[in-house]
């Protein structure tokens, strides 16, 4: 196991290096620079800024310099927010996005699994149709509409929850729900189809022939086998959600990481682009690793510690 994880960590470093390199050059290929704006800067000021941030150096020097700094977990200063570094932005925004995202994932997973399992157990009955209508709504309604509808009813009309901001637990409920809606719907559909497939298997008939009740068959025989597709979806999903959502964070005025992904690009804020990309990649690679480990725990046929010598 330790050996497997070490090997995976080495692969992760290689992937990160490739991601950093690709982002670095793609970013430079895009026209404009961090100081391009509608009001043109006087040339001497722009030259001074370029000099200050090292943008006048040859590309290989900038590239090498950047790699060195990233290796020390230093993403450099932001080009737009003059007084803050990229590290500051991430360490301020990420805990908020993480808390919001984790809540949303829990909601999505719990409700999605329940809906999916109910739909599969009552295949082609009203429970199935009901669950799937919820799922279709969840997938097709965009999150900004979901968010405003939730705000309208829960905050404005009934006054149950705060409209926006990020202060107490009460503030977290609406954004978490809005963020959870579409992954929940997706998980529900995934669970349903995978449960239906599992329930048609011979070993479910065997379980039934032992005289086990429907509940026991579902819990002990079906769910574990139906979980694999959901688990594989959880990897990229969690990485996406815990690094923040631009739309939801904007609507609810949440100081998370999500907005930086979008604004840094329109700002050509080189260091922030690089910083959030690397950060996102790390989270993604780690969640994929966790998914692979979870695979091995769920399905004994998948031996992650495998390799040549593996038991």
């Amino acid at each position, binding site marked *: 196991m330790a050996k497997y994880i070490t090997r995976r960590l080495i692969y992760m470093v290689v992937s990160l290096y490739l991601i950093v390199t690709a982002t670095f050059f793609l970013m430079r290929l895009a026209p404009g620079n961090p100081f391009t704006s509608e009001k043109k800067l006087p040339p001497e000021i722009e030259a001074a800024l370029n000099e200050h941030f090292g943008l006048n150096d040859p590309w290989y020097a900038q590239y090498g310099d950047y790699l060195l700094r990233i290796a020390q977990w230093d993403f450099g200063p932001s080009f737009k927010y003059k007084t803050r570094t990229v590290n500051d932005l991430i360490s301020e925004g990420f805990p908020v996005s993480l808390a919001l995202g984790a809540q949303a994932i829990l909601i999505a997973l719990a409700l999605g699994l329940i809906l999916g399992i109910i739909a599969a157990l009552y295949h082609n009955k009203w429970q199935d149709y009901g669950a799937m209508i919820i799922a279709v709504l969840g997938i097709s309604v965009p999150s900004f509409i979901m968010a405003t509808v939730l705000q309208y009813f829960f905050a404005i009309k009934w006054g149950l929850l705060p409209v926006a901001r990020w202060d107490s637990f009460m503030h977290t409920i609406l954004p978490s729900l809005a963020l959870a809606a579409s992954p929940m719907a997706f998980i529900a559909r995934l669970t349903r189809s995978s449960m239906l497939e599992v329930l048609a298997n011979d*070993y479910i008939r065997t379980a039934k*022939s*032992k005289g*086990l*009740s429907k509940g026991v068959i579902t819990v002990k025989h079906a769910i574990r086998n139906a979980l694999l597709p959901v688990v594989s979806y959880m990897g990229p999903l969690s990485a996406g959600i815990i690094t923040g959502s631009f739309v939801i964070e904007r609507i609810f005025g949440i100081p998370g990481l999500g907005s930086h992904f979008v604004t840094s690009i329109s700002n050509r804020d080189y260091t922030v682009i690089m910083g959030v990309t690397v950060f996102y990649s790390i989270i993604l690679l780690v969640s994929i690793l966790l998914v692979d480990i979870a695979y091995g725990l*769920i399905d*004994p*046929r998948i031996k992650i510690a495998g390799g040549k010598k593996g038991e």
Partner: protein
Amino acid sequence: MEKILEVKDLSVSFQTYGGEVQAVRNVNFDLYKGETLAIVGESGSGKSVTTQTIMKLIPMPPGKIKSGQILFEGKDIVPLSDKQMEKVRGKEISMIFQDPMTSLNPTMKIGRQIMEGLIKHQNMSTSSAKERAIEMLRLVGIPMPERRVNQYPHEFSGGMRQRAMIAIALAANPKLLIADEPTTALDVTIQAQILELMKDLQSKMNTSIIFITHDLGVVANVADRVAVMYGGQIVETGTVDEIFYDPRHPYTWGLLASMPSLENDDKSELAAIPGTPPDLTNPPKGDAFAARNPYAMQIDFEEEPPLFQISETHFAKTWLLHPDAPAVEPPDAVKRRMRKLSSTFDKPVLVKGGK
């Protein structure tokens, strides 16, 4: 001898988009304590549906028991609810399925899969159920059961998995074991071992067995009595000797003639029954086998044949046994094996009203 199971006039249908498939049509048979009944027939003849209906394992809907009774120890189980059936399945009646590769849960330890039934039906504690599971694995001939009990199905070979299936089925000491082609997916040497094992366990536990197969070699090996199914009906039933040495139904003749034998010289071709099984959405009017039957007479296409009794235990559903029918010769391969059995009546007797 005591009857453990009586199936009376059982009809089972499936509702499909193409219409109602009458998979089982007015089937009657009995099973005695400690006896092995083999049900033979080609694919789609209704043998699996019949036996899965006995455990009520067919999906309902689309499946439906249209008529009939299934008396298990004298009690009809057709009206029982799913909840009530849970007390019958695994405890009174168990089943071994055809494909051991897919019939075991891949993510559950073998031991656990044996223990489940024990914990449910015999209120055993986990530890005593585990001991019993180890004992069962040893009984079905799995070496090192203490270690094997903690392994997953993918760590077992095909034959080992079928042994494990047998251990699961027999763990709670059922009175009736249904084996649905238990050796079809296994290679020949393993087949023989599994059959030997089942016979051995049957004599130890005095279980009654219904053995579904399309392999007549297996039938000769294990069965006391045979029921031949065709088109959702039982067309001939009798003791093994009666079916093998004095078959009366032309379908049984076809089955026997198409069995490869060492006595066949290499010039004679292996016989086959031409044609395909009848469409059970729309069962033929007369004898279901008429269209493929080289001996078919006009009446076979018009009216369903009645049941004739050839001996105390031998019944066949064919017009050929009617006093007015012309005498016909069975195929050579069958004729060669025909013997005069002492129990045979002088003349086939028409059975009035079903059985």
